[in-house]
């Protein structure tokens, strides 16, 4: 029983470490007032402790770690994408409403009273706090600013000491005056200092002076409007920005629920919908062409190699699957160099054999042609391996019978080989379609989806497929991010993927396989 006890102690120890980390996280979340995530965390802690301490729920002990990872990093992001597609999340709408209000309320203007105050700062070693002596530039009145309070003082106030007798105050209550270099060191603290003065606020203007400021905007929570404190104009929240009646907007905006607007834009706004439609059509063409070309060449080679008597078959096989063994990101980049239109080898060969050089990478049609060729290179070995397996499972008797009936080679292929291979590989061909439908790496690494479609408002390229288009909508530098629109496009990919897969499940009986696990 000794080992069991040891194991028990180990389990308790691990659980204790986990709980310590979890509680620590919970405290941080509580301090940050992130109550939603905090609630999820607390539920998580309870479930995990229950599962590992209780003697019941035995299978859950094994399943739980994987489930947590899957929920946090796959299920949640997928659902979150759905949510984002109904919002205006993106550049200019990154903050939530509360944060945007805080930012707008922090904006100040200089009131009509343009009073400025020269300041001197006083500090005692090892104490954060700084005391200020402020002098009105106009009338020379003196103010002492201590701990957020301001009080007017006279020049002979006993707290102000001129220890060096040079007419300048050097010390207040044991705090020493800071030299200019020291003020720069402490600028972060001084910048944060605010004093109420009449109905304005006194704050740092530059390294020498303080000035009066007034809050520009105030948010009225009850009526949900932002009020301009100078003009009493009201700004109402419209689509993630406070907007007044003339349509002027305040920055920053905030993220908000938009309903179906992103989806509508994709269909109705011609500057977005026209390039989007081209991307959409090309995605299907691309996936279909990829499957047909790779399967065609793969099956063809498999038939050639399906001959036990042939010499060198093993060598051929190894050499032919080499492209499949190289990471795709590396081979696509190699091809990118070879297709370089000015100095790449492909055009050099074309010119050497007396043809024109071709504007690969610059012309939409030719870039697409190059991509299909590159993907053929990448993908045919997989199809060849699958086809070789499928061919071996076809009974030789069928061909013998066909031979007796006088069938030609073509007829044998057309009526025996092709149908049987298609039945055997059908689901894999559909999976391959789905894979190429989202084959981001080949498209993006080859030419970043370019060349651009002329007149497109969004970053849509002539070789972009839906998935690379969503990437560019979200992360292309220089254009700003439109996470909401990108998520709406992703939803379309979800939908198409779901349809294709449902079809495939029907085909393979994967759902029956689940049922068999009754």
């Amino acid at each position, binding site marked *: 029983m000794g080992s069991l006890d040891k194991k028990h102690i180990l389990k308790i120890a691990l659980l204790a470490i986990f709980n310590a980390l979890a509680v620590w996280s919970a405290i941080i979340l509580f301090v940050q007032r992130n109550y939603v995530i905090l609630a999820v965390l607390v539920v998580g802690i309870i479930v995990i402790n229950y599962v590992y301490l209780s003697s019941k729920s035995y299978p859950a002990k094994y399943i739980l770690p994987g489930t947590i990872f899957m929920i946090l990093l796959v299920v949640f992001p997928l659902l979150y994408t759905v949510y984002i597609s109904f919002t205006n999340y993106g550049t200019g709408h990154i903050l939530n409403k509360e944060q945007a209000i805080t930012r707008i309320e922090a904006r100040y203007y200089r009131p009509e009273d343009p009073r400025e105050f020269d300041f001197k700062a006083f500090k005692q070693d090892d104490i954060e706090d700084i005391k200020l002596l402020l002098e009105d530039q106009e009338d020379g009145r003196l103010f002492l600013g201590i701990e957020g309070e301001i009080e007017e003082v006279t020049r002979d106030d006993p707290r102000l000491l001129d220890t060096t007798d040079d007419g300048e105050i050097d010390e207040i209550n044991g705090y020493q005056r800071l030299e200019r270099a020291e003020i720069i060191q402490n600028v972060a603290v001084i910048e944060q200092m605010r004093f109420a003065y009449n109905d304005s606020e006194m704050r740092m203007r530059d390294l020498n002076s303080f000035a009066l400021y007034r809050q520009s905007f105030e948010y009225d929570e009850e009526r949900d409007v932002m009020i301009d404190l100078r003009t009493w104009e009201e700004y109402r929240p419209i689509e993630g920005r406070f907007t007044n009646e003339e349509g002027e907007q305040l920055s920053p905006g905030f993220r908000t629920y938009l309903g179906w607007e992103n989806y509508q834009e994709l269909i109705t706004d011609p500057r977005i919908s026209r390039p989007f439609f081209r991307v959409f059509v090309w995605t299907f063409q691309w996936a279909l062409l990829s499957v047909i070309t790779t399967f065609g060449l793969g099956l063809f080679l498999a038939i050639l190699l399906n001959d036990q008597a042939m010499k060198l078959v093993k060598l051929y096989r190894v050499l032919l699957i080499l492209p499949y063994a190289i990471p795709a990101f590396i081979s696509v980049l190699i091809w990118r160099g070879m297709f370089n239109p000015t100095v790449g080898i492909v055009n050099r060969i074309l010119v050497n054999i007396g043809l024109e050089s071709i504007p690969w990478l610059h012309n939409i049609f030719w870039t697409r042609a190059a991509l299909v060729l590159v993907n053929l290179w990448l993908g045919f070995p997989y199809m060849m391996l699958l086809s070789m397996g499928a061919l071996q499972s076809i009974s030789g008797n069928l061909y013998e019978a066909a031979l007796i009936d006088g069938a030609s080679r073509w007829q044998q292929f057309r009526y025996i080989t092709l149908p049987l291979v298609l039945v055997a590989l059908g689901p894999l061909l559909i*999976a391959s379609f789905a894979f190429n439908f989202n084959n981001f790496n080949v498209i993006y690494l080859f030419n970043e989806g370019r060349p651009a479609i002329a007149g497109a408002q969004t970053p849509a390229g002539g070789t972009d497929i839906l998935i690379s288009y969503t990437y560019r909508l979200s992360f292309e530098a220089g254009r700003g991010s439109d996470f909401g629109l990108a998520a709406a496009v992703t939803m379309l990919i979800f939908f198409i993927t779901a349809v294709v897969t449902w079809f495939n499940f029907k085909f393979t009986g994967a759902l029956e396989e689940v049922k068999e*696990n009754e």
Partner: protein
Amino acid sequence: MNNYTPTWMKILKHAVIWLTIVFCMFPILWALSASFNPANTLVGQPLIPEEISFSNYETLFTSQQHPFATWLFNSVKIALIASFGSVALTTLAAYPFSRFNFWGRRNGLFMILLVQVFPQMLAMVALYLLFLNVQTIFPAIGINTHPAVIITYMGGAIGVNTWLMKGYMDTIPRSIEDAAFIDGASGFQIFYRIILPLSKPILGVLFVIQFIASYSEYVLARVLLNSTDRLTLAVGLHLFVAEDYGGRWGVFSAAAMLGAIPIIILFMLVQDHIVTGFLSGGGVKG
């Protein structure tokens, strides 16, 4: 096929195959040649360099601006940890699905099947925003950290791998466990001492496949990482050549060769499993 094959046809067959082999090998040999060519440019590169030099390979390890060695190390590190973690989680999860009958088992299997239909990559925006928010709470696993990438890869691989692993475990006869149970083995002992050793082949294969997949992953690493010294090889190399290809071809080729070799070796180790339907569930290798 028992058809009679004339000689000219045999020759034609070999010729066609050799033609395809040239198509296969040309880019690889072309890059290999460039990697040893000190000219380091796409302009006028011959297939056999006039002078063989390792200067491009030296650049890989000395360049300050483009730390290739660091990128390669990052890729290997991330892929190793992510594959190990993912295989561990998968093995644990697959075991009860294969061996016990419990409430929610069928629905659980169905959910896993459903979730793995959608590539994790589709949620790149959400993952980016997720880690952006995590950063404000736990900077150690926020944007631009390796742990963020590692746990992302670990989570993404669980679905399909659990099904594969469960399928394999289903083939292990139960009689061995029954015998162990009679001998007084506890639940965890049966898992650890019997199921785990018997699953070794699939553990190895899954590990290698997961390693290759993580090593080759581009878009999530691109989205989650941004400082130069933290990039993976895939992201670093792309950014390297996207800026200026003409004058960097030789150095790129050297990096491509070094980056491809470990994967080619691993691939050859597991290629039989790939053929016998390993990737059949998920499609084609990325």
